[in-house]
């Protein structure tokens, strides 16, 4: 009886003290993980990569600038409501937030300037945050969805023998019916007007297990190219269905969240030749992987030790790259403000002044994995370049099959301007001056 009373009191006390005690000399980086739910197959590799890189920095370098990094994980299951709850729970002392979910990003965008914590939505989230004048607290470098759509169209044009050969072709988009999936539609519509191809879109309701009807429709409509903008279990179902209607895999391009190992492996050999866009290289042959193996896995510090053989997966590398951007921003903040213990505001300045050169990439072991990045006050999107990768089912590996393309700024910049100005009008945001 007394024990359960004590337990009840203890639970009450701990429930009241919801935020854990914060050690002053630590860099707090929250991780809104999704290792459960329909999107777990994509979440687990990403968050392993993210945690592994920050653990590597702690083990190899003693943290950033000598201050250890503390990752505070919180499970969101990719649900917007749990994402907001996790944000409120972990924001005490947080330096930078990576929601890794477009839905959660939208919910957090109005909170970032109020709580003074920058939001890094690398290659996802609200596309128009590229306009740094209206969104000073949100960043989406090195590339966003509209640039992705443009890069994919450029690759298609190249394969067809020139952008003018796209005229009259049919391009279909199969997308997850939420904010993330709808992102490329305005750009693809604008590009279809510019290049003269016919664009049609096929929504799939979350979580996307039922797609027979969609793909039967595609078999009837016979597009020349199909784009996939899915996430979680939807991807593998789409690829299996496409193989089922015998759609040529080398004309089927997923975006970078729809082209990872767990999306193509269920379809087996039939997924051979499936394409995907990318903004970093796949594979585990880079210097950073060797360091992670040595300092994290072999030292027993990995958050998921069973993942050792899966290092180098597309989403694992993405976690590494996102963690690298986070760490570089914190380091830049320390350098700009000449202090080791930085705050969210200083990290925001660090993000805006970020200039990761090729030399720096080589020094930190990311040479060849990702391209250099430069962020400015007005341009939070950075270089806005992407490449195309292809799945080799026999070797079981992804490989980059193109160089990095520039996105079509002529089409995308006006769209970004219009969308961000609508946000500014609806939410009474005054655009700031960018020197």
């Amino acid at each position, binding site marked *: 009886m007394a024990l359960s009373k004590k337990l009840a009191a203890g639970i009450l006390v701990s429930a*009241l003290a919801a935020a854990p005690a914060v050690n002053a000399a630590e860099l707090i980086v929250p991780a809104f993980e999704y*290792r459960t739910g329909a999107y777990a197959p994509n979440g687990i590799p990403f968050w392993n990569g993210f945690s592994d890189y920050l653990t590597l920095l702690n083990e190899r370098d003693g943290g950033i600038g000598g201050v250890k990094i503390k990752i505070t994980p919180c499970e969101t299951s990719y649900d917007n409501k749990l994402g907001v709850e996790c944000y409120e729970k972990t924001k005490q002392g947080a330096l930078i937030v990576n929601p890794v979910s477009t839905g959660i990003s*939208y919910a957090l965008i109005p909170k970032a300037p109020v709580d003074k914590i920058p939001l890094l939505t690398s290659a996802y989230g609200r596309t128009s945050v590229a306009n740094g004048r209206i969104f000073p607290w949100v960043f989406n470098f090195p590339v966003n969805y509209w640039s992705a759509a443009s890069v994919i169209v450029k690759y298609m044009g190249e394969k067809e023998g020139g952008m003018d050969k796209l005229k009259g072709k049919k391009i279909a988009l199969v997308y997850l019916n939420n904010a993330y999936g*709808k992102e490329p539609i305005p750009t693809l519509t604008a590009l279809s007007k510019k290049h003269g191809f016919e664009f049609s879109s096929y929504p799939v309701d979350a979580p996307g297990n039922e797609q027979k009807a969609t793909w039967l429709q595609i078999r009837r409509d016979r597009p020349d190219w199909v784009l996939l903008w899915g996430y979680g279990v939807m991807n593998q179902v789409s690829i299996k269905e496409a193989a089922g209607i015998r759609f040529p895999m080398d004309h089927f391009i997923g975006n970078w969240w729809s082209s990872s190992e767990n999306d193509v492996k269920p379809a087996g050999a039939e997924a051979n030749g499936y394409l995907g866009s990318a903004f970093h290289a796949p594979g585990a042959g880079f210097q950073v992987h060797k360091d992670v193996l040595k300092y994290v896995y072999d030292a027993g510090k990995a958050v998921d030790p069973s993942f050792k053989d899966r290092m180098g997966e597309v989403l694992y590398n993405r976690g590494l790259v996102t963690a690298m951007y986070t760490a570089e921003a914190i380091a830049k903040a320390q350098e700009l403000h000449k202090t080791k213990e930085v705050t969210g505001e200083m990290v925001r300045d660090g993000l805006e002044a970020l200039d990761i050169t090729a030399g720096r990439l080589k020094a930190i072991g990311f040479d060849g994995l990702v391209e250099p990045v430069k962020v400015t006050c007005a341009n939070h999107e950075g270089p806005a370049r992407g490449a195309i990768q292809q799945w080799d089912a026999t070797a079981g590996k992804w490989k980059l099959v193109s160089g990095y393309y520039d996105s079509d700024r002529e089409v995308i910049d006006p769209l970004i301007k219009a969308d961000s100005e609508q946000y500014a009008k609806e939410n009474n945001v005054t655009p700031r001056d960018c020197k």
Partner: protein
Amino acid sequence: MFYREAGQLKTSYASDMAILPLREDRTLVFAILAIAYLVVPFFLTDFWLSAVAIPFLAYAMAAMGLNILTGYCGQLSLGTGGFLAAGAYSAYKITTAFPELNLVFVFLAAGLCTAIVGLAFGIPSLRIKGFYLAVATLAAQFFIVWLVTRVPWFTNYNASGQIQMPGRTILGYQVTGGAISGTAQYLFALTFVAVFALIAKNFSRTNTGRAWMAIRDMDIAAELIGIRPLYAKLSAFAVSSFYIGIAGAMMFGLWLSSVEPSSSFGINQSFLVLFMVIIGGLGTVLGSFLGAGFLVLLPLLLSVVLVDWFGIVPSQAKHAEILTMGILIVFFLIAEPHGLAKIWQTTREKLRLWPFPY
């Protein structure tokens, strides 16, 4: 000993017909209200506000709405998610079209729009009953979510299809948007819920409420004694959808500020609110609150206890939480099929007699 009913004599008809005739009950309810209004705001951190208080109040409102329909009138409905969406999107359209309109009127207008929608989807209830009606209300769920996704007018032609609540103030304090005053937002939501709980409690004592309960108990007998099913059932749908619409506006405006229809108002929301009503207790206002507390606050408490207190990895804690919630739901329904409100009622009856056994 707790209930000293001797000497509590009623000297007027009004006091005889009070909702809470016993002084001890009144004291309890006023104490809870006093704590909610005067004590809680001082302990309200951002986390407590947006993860505990506002979700609880919004879901309590939705549960009250569904309780009116399913508990008082006996019409099973699985369209709650759709009506929540209708409330959220009508609130969005109204406040962006009339930015100067007071937020109270925006919410009430959103409730009215949802009531009209609910009225339309309530028409099948005149011909079908029970589980078949539940399937017909699924049409509301899927149609409304499809409509707001498909027709760009509802999202003000936004490219991504997500709507964002602009900042609005009440009496000078900002309650929606980014830079909110937490206490103001909480008190605003609490006042809405308290007022509408009182209205819901009074409904069971009106002609309309009694007509609903007659329809629930035996609709053919009700029709025979002169209660018109059309007015009763459609008014139940209208009032219920009014409550659910306001709950949807609260979810969108106060809690999430940015919603996408498929994840925030999907079929899972309909089931969640239905479970709240069933586990809380059909046909009682207290049941709505208890059910909302059980299904909103208990998972949160479990995750806080497992992750912060026992230090379990968050993803494992999530699996454990889902498992535990399922077991608790089964346990409570076996222990007391009439819900948590019945447990309170039984406890209260025992307290009235304590320490005597009868």
